[in-house]
C-alpha cells in the first residue's frame, strides 16, 4: 500500500532531517516504500521552496519527488477514479456476464470452423488456401 504524502511531510523531509517525515522520504528514495503525491500538493511544496529557498532549489526537489513518487492529478480525482473503477468492475461484469462471454465465444468459434469446412471434410483449417 503506497504512502500518501502531504505537503507538510515533503517539506519537513528536507527542512527537518531528523523528523519522521525525513525518515519516510529516505525509505522512499531507497526503494523500500512506495509514495503517492498529488499535483496540488506538489505545487504547494514548490511554492514553499520557491519562496524561501529559491526556484532552483524548488525545481530540484520537486523533480526528485516526481522521479521517486507516483504523482496523481489530485487526491480527490484519484480516489473518485479508483471508486468508479471498482464500481465498474463489480457492477458491470459479473459471473453471469462471464458465462455469456463463454457462450458467445463458443458460438462464434463453431461458426468460424463450420464456415471454413469444405464439403467432404470434417474440420476446416483457415490457413488452407482455396482449391
Amino acid at each position, binding site marked *: 500500500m503506497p504512502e500518501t504524502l502531504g505537503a507538510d511531510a515533503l517539506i519537513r*523531509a528536507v527542512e527537518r532531517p531528523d523528523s519522521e517525515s525525513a525518515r519516510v522520504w529516505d525509505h522512499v528514495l531507497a526503494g523500500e516504500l512506495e509514495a503517492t503525491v498529488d499535483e496540488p500538493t506538489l505545487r504547494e511544496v514548490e511554492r514553499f521552496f520557491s519562496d*524561501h529557498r529559491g526556484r532552483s532549489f524548488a525545481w530540484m526537489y520537486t523533480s526528485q519527488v516526481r522521479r*521517486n513518487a507516483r504523482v496523481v492529478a489530485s487526491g480527490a480525482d484519484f480516489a473518485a477514479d479508483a471508486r468508479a473503477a471498482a464500481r465498474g468492475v463489480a457492477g458491470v461484469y459479473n459471473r453471469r456476464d462471464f458465462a455469456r462471454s463463454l457462450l458467445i465465444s463458443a458460438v462464434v468459434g463453431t461458426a468460424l470452423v463450420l464456415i471454413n469446412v469444405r464439403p467432404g471434410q470434417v474440420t476446416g483449417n483457415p490457413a488452407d488456401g482455396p482449391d
Partner: protein
Amino acid sequence: MAKVFPLHLRGPQSRIVDRMVSTGMADTPHEAVETALLAFGKQAGLLSEAELLKALRKEAATEPIGEGEHVERTRRARGARNSRR
C-alpha cells in the same frame, strides 16, 4: 569544499543559462549553473537521489527556519493553493 573559478559560457551553454533564468527555473545565472550541474550529475549517474537530497538538506541547513516560522510559511503556501481554486 567550495570551488571558485571564472566561467566563460558561449553558444548553447550560454543560451541554456539564459533560458533557465528567463523561464524562472533559476533566479540567477550562478544558480542556473549550479542547478544544471546537479541535474547533469543526477542524469549521468554521478549523483544518487540520496546524495542530491543530502545536498538540498545541507543547503537548507545554512538558513534554518524555526518551527513557528515553518508552520506559518507552510500555512501561507497552502493558503495560496486554496485561493487559486
